[in-house]
């Protein structure tokens, strides 16, 4: 007799039901949507915003197929991508810079499915299209930047305490301060030790000069690098928000790397440009005391640099930075009084105070506004200061296009990168290829499954059919599990689903062959079923564990697509053991287990050597 206790049937039924429910959302597909979320914490996504969005869409005559208010944003569904893109543009212009309006895909599954957390599988970039970047943070750049900041601060402190020094140099990872006598050096040393806990200070005598060499302490060095990566991630997140990307992934990978994934992004050139840019702003004074023509001949005076103004002539700019982009609260693109594209800046309190002081002290002189990108500085404009400017409102206009003004505003608003970054890996997949890849993966699985189903049913008849049903359950459970876990499904992952189908049938072949074997040896059908399942189980376990070892190693050492392959492979092994052994046995027990007299079972012809006649 082959009977299962009823709890086993319950387990089988419940797991199949769960598999069905969680697989279901994958069949409804997704429809284009626009996602609106406020960028600043002060603005809230509420019914008022919902009303605004609704009105704007109605005014533009754009029909939605559904709109929801969710925590952190509003999502509106549209019939097709044309309407979606029009709606995005409309909403962006109506709502302005305070909101992120991003294209997205929303599952079409009914509300009750979504509310129990049944979502479609999370598709990787190779299936939905998008960009994947791996960026490496330039740690030397981060340290250099920190040293620059320290040099400026030390200068300030020495001046404030009225300690005379004859020069300050940055050499590699050292800051060297030069003094004329040892008294001022001693004074400076105690001052630096007191104020800058992150620096090691050492005295050196070079010729007749008294030097003080400051270096970063190792722990401070590490801290700077860690915070550089963290700040870069924050900045990237801000910039990505400005780009309007739904569900971006930005995370640290290793000590000095950041992974950025932007699903559905089409304009990769723009994305790369915005992500990689290290724009920051500096305000410096124009050096008008020295001779420009001498500088043009190569005699650049000490403490100044030669630049060319955008669309203008060359000019000498002092090295000393008065104000940096860190002091910017907000930046908006707009137009100046002459209707030229301009960037309007709003400085914070400190910045506003510095700027007022600067303009007050230098009326009639020229200042230079520099945009620093990838270590290259450019003077955007060098206006003459007409009067004291208070209130922290600054306008930069200098022969830029509207597009440039918008980019500069975006970069200034999103903050500067703490250290430059390089793209060391890029994977871009166009949306059409993504759709093709889904079809390819799906077809491979479908036809592979069909071929196996036909063969198994012919070869093992009813037991073959039972195996095929078990295989179907395996597929159902695997997809349900992937949907529940929201693990990223990639093309190799889809290949792994197909491969799992091909490998999972092994367990059923083993069982069926065993049963035939036992029948051949003259066992009664019921006993043969029982012993076939029992004996095959050990083998099935052994053979699956070896594959599991390979899967786990792939997961541990693989990256990106390979990891996706490994996840599906490992999950597929687990579901296949369950479905091939428990589910198929359950079906066999249901069909044959209760029959007292079972003379033969439909497992195909069992051939016996000619010497033994039936």
């Amino acid at each position, binding site marked *: 007799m082959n009977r299962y206790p009823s709890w086993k049937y319950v387990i089988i039924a419940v797991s199949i039901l769960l598999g069905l429910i969680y697989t279901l959302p994958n069949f409804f597909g997704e429809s284009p949507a626009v996602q609106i979320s406020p960028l600043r914490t002060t603005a809230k996504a509420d019914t008022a915003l919902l009303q605004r969005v609704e009105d704007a869409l109605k005014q533009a005559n754009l029909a939605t197929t559904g709109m929801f208010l969710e925590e952190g944003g509003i999502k509106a569904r549209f019939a097709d991508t044309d309407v979606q893109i029009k709606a995005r543009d409309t909403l962006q212009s109506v709502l302005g810079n305070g909101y992120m309006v991003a294209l997205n895909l929303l599952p079409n599954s009914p509300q009750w499915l979504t509310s129990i957390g049944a979502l479609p599988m999370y598709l990787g970039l190779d299936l939905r299209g998008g960009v994947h970047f791996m960026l490496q943070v330039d740690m030397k750049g981060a340290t250099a930047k920190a040293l620059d900041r320290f040099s400026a601060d030390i200068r300030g402190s020495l001046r404030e305490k009225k300690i005379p020094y004859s020069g300050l140099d940055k050499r590699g990872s050292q800051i060297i301060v030069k003094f004329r006598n040892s008294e001022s050096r001693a004074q400076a040393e105690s001052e630096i030790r007191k104020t800058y806990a992150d620096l090691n200070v050492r005295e050196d005598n070079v010729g007749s000069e008294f030097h003080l060499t400051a270096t970063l302490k190792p722990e401070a060095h590490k801290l700077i690098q860690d915070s550089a990566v963290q700040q870069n991630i924050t900045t990237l997140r801000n910039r990505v928000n400005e780009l309007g990307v739904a569900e971006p992934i930005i995370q640290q990978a290793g000590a000095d790397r950041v992974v950025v994934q932007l699903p559905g992004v089409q304009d990769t050139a723009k994305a790369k440009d915005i992500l990689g840019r290290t724009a920051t702003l500096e305000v410096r004074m124009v050096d008008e005391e020295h001779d420009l023509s001498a500088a043009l001949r190569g005699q650049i005076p000490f403490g100044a640099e030669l630049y060319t103004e955008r669309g203008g002539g060359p000019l000498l700019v002092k090295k000393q930075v008065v104000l940096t982009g860190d002091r910017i609260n907000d930046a908006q693109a707009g137009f100046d009084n002459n209707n030229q594209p301009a960037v309007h800046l709003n400085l914070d309190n400190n910045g506003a105070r510095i700027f007022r002081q600067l303009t007050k002290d230098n009326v009639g002189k020229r200042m230079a506004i520099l945009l620093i990108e990838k270590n290259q500085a450019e003077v955007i404009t060098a206006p003459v200061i007409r009067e004291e400017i208070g209130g922290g409102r600054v306008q930069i206009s200098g022969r830029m296009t509207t597009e440039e003004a918008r980019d500069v505003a975006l970069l200034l608003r999103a903050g500067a990168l703490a250290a430059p970054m390089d793209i060391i890996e890029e994977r871009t997949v166009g949306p059409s290829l993504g759709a093709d890849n889904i079809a390819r993966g799906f077809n491979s699985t479908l036809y592979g499954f069909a071929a196996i189903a036909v063969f198994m049913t012919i070869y093992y008849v009813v037991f073959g059919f039972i195996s095929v049903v078990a295989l179907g359950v395996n597929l159902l459970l695997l997809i349900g599990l992937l949907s529940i876990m929201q693990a990223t499904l990639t093309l190799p992952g889809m290949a792994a689903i197909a491969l799992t189908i091909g490998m999972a049938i092994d367990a059923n072949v083993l069982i069926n062959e065993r049963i035939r074997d036992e029948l051949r040896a003259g066992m009664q059908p019921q006993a043969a079923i029982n012993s076939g399942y029992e004996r095959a189980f050990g083998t099935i376990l052994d053979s699956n564990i070896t594959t599991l070892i*390979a899967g786990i190693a792939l997961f541990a050492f693989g990256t990106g697509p390979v990891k996706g392959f490994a996840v599906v492979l490992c999950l597929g092994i687990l579901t296949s053991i369950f479905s091939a052994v428990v589910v198929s046995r359950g079906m066999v027990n249901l069909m044959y287990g209760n029959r007292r007299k079972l003379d033969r079972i439909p497992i195909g012809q069992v051939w016996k050597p000619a010497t033994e006649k039936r």
Partner: protein
Amino acid sequence: MEFFRIKHDIPFMSWGKYTTTISLLTFVLAVFFLVTKGLNLGVDFTGGTVMEVSYAQTADINKIRDTLIKLGMSDASVQNFGTSRDVMIRLPAKPDMSSAKLSERVIASLKEEDKTAEIRRVEFVGPQVGKELVENGALALLVVSLGIVAYLAMRFEWKFGVSGIIANLHDVVIILGFFAFFQWEFSLTVLAAILAILGYSVNESVVVFDRIRENFRRMRKASVEQVINNAITRTMSRTIITHGSTQMVVVSMLFFGGEALHYFALALTIGILFGIYSSVLVASPLLMLLGVSREDIVRPEKKEEAEALP
């Protein structure tokens, strides 16, 4: 239906001389091609840029090549990919130009030539990332091998572990040999396929080993050779059917999986074919060579009633 109607055990072990010769020959050939031709490593491992561009009409490869030469990229390789309208462009890693700029410039010039050019895929891997991927791949191979040996040694006995893994590494080398000989592109997905094959075809050895263990317990009077022959013969039909089924899916991947899964499926095909061969005709002779005996498996004090032979 029953494919295999085998009356007597097939004397696989007595073919040891031939099979060992064949194995050694293929193995040496594979190593030879690996050394002389080397693997055609994909962009994942070498670093560089790969671009897939699709056109509305048949793509003019020569024109594309000219465009690239004009850009100063004479070392680029251009070839059709899948259909005549799809083109794959490979650019070696250039230390002086950032990837972002490189691919953008190529796309811009191609669009200038033909407006229908559409970027389907861009992959850029920096040289340092490529190096890491090679290291991680080698490490994964090592861990999988050791893990399998350890598991087999624990579950059976060390001789089983050693012969199992040698047989399967032999498959891996042969797959690599094929990739070297035909200069097929060796990418990350192919590596994944090879590691999966390593785990999968060990199954095969496990099934045979399982039978050998069982036979040692049942066939008290039989010699080691008889035991192994019987085990192989009786698992034959399962072996062929299982691998046939897996191969059906892999064939389906070859036909419907497109270019992206082509080499993945190819690696699996070779792996499956040689997996059958090696687990039957390499692992078991090795087991005999290592001197497996009944005492390795059956503890002397444990006495069971011997079952009748089939």
